[in-house]
């Protein structure tokens, strides 16, 4: 069966499956936490409560939450599940004993995961942005700004999910390794000035965000940004590279679905 058509079939099935999945619903709910907070903030503001503008709330709360915490963790859960769920639930055999290549299976699954995650991230970002900045959204400048956030969010989702698809294909316990990567490596390296930062994913994402103030706290720490085009290219290349490597690993590695029965 041709590569693309089997990947498409796999994509369709798992996209629908993940829409019905409890995990997806939990992730969706989590993504909208900033949105809900903004909503509450506005309601309070209407009744004469709060004083700060929604823009600050968006930048100080929604952006760090989504970029620093949510996107990496969603990438970790969703990415590692691409192979992990098939092993845990021992369903891998159903896919590998059909005439679809393993590469197309993994790419179809990853694509489904990425598309769903992208939809969630874009909805959550755009929703929070609109709620935080109000009518500013409709100005040309506001649109451009939102575009930058969305671009950064989309690329971040792709890069993290692809990386953790690779983790899932490669490792037995991808989540621990992933947590160490996100809160260890990515976090520590940002305190080191110079070019070491270029070894993290978050560096390129930060370079794409439309404001460069370091006042916002730990997300902007020690940033020596790369050029936007450069960052976009690197993130795209990284995603492609991680996925390609993941399919290589997935195609050649054998997965034992349960304990050997001896």
């Amino acid at each position: 069966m041709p590569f693309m058509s089997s990947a498409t079939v796999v994509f369709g099935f798992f996209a629908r499956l993940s829409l019905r999945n409890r995990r997806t619903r939990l992730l969706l709910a989590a993504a909208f936490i900033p949105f809900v907070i903004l909503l509450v903030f506005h309601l309070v503001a209407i009744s004469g409560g709060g004083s700060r503008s929604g823009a600050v709330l968006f930048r100080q709360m929604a952006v760090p939450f989504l970029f620093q915490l949510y996107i990496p963790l969603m990438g970790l859960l969703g990415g590692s599940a691409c192979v992990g769920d098939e092993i845990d639930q021992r369903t891998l055999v159903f896919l590998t004993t059909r005439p679809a290549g393993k590469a197309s299976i993994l790419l179809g699954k990853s694509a489904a995961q990425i598309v769903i995650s992208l939809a969630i991230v874009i909805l959550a970002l755009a929703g929070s942005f609109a709620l935080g900045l109000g009518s500013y959204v409709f100005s040309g400048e506001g649109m451009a700004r939102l575009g930058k956030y969305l671009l950064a969010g989309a690329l971040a989702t792709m890069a993290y999910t692809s990386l953790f698809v690779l983790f899932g294909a490669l490792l037995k316990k991808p989540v621990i390794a992933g947590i160490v990567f996100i809160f260890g490596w990515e976090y520590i390296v940002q305190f080191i000035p110079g070019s070491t930062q270029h070894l993290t994913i978050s560096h390129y994402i930060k370079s794409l965000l439309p404001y460069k103030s370091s006042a916002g706290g730990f997300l902007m720490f020690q940033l020596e940004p790369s050029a936007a085009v450069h960052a976009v290219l690197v993130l795209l290349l990284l995603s492609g590279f991680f996925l390609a490597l993941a399919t290589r690993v997935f195609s050649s590695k054998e997965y034992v679905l349960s304990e050997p029965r001896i």
Partner: protein
Amino acid sequence: MISMTDSIIQLKEISFFYNGFQAIRGVSLEIGAGVYGLLGPNGAGKTTLMKIILGHLAPAAGGGRVLGTPMDAGLIEVRRRIGYMPESHCLIPGMDAVTLTAYMGELSGMPRQEAIKRAHEVLYYVGLEESRYRKADTYSSGMKQRLKLALALVHDPELMILDEPTSGMDPGGREEMLELIRDIAAKGRMNMIISSHILADIEKTCQQVLIMNSGSIVSEQHTRDFNSQDTSIFEVGIKGDPREFLRRLPKIQAETDRRGLLRLHLPADYPPMNLFRDALEAGVQIRHFRPSRLTLEDAFVTAIGESHAR
């Protein structure tokens, strides 16, 4: 100790629903001491009924007594005195068999040292003495089955509930498991309820059998009643071409069973010994010959009816 005359389980009008689907339909039953078989197709409600007895599921209606204790109020008491062997594989990962068995004994109320000693004994008894220090997750499914029996036995209960005890075992293992169950029932004077969809297992171990279908008990009988003879049906095994042989017989009903044996319904005017003559003339050998018995399988099929097979 329960005397032989007491009833072990009394259920009255038990009903149970899974998401609106009625899995148990007003079951009333009284089970005395001894070994009872619970037979029925997949989805008949055997496991559900067992879980209700254990208090894992609360019936929507009805109630009863288990080992003389009211089901709802005496939950802890009932669970202390029952040994349950579930159908599904369940284990605690990373534990070896002795640890797991002793742990279960301890949870049942045995002192720790006693539980460890008893764990070794029961594991030896079920034939796992050589692999008792191995992690239970590396066991084959036959070994897991033995381990589950050991877990159900460790606290020497008064009533054992065994759900599909031979599922997933090879023939040798299955025979040994049935032998163990018979031995426990005889030597330990254990009361048991054994569910199975394998007829031979029930026939070999139980005195009484309850047949379940679609959430109701459709028949209750002694296993020995199944062996009443019906002389006009014979089971015949031949070596050679059966067509030539069958052509020589008078117009009779013949069917082939799962083992490849012919089941011949002979008319009254045909002496069974003529089969040997006809076989000789047809050039085939009769290698197996026996009056057919009404087996548990027949009883099962009659009780359940053809509606199930569709």
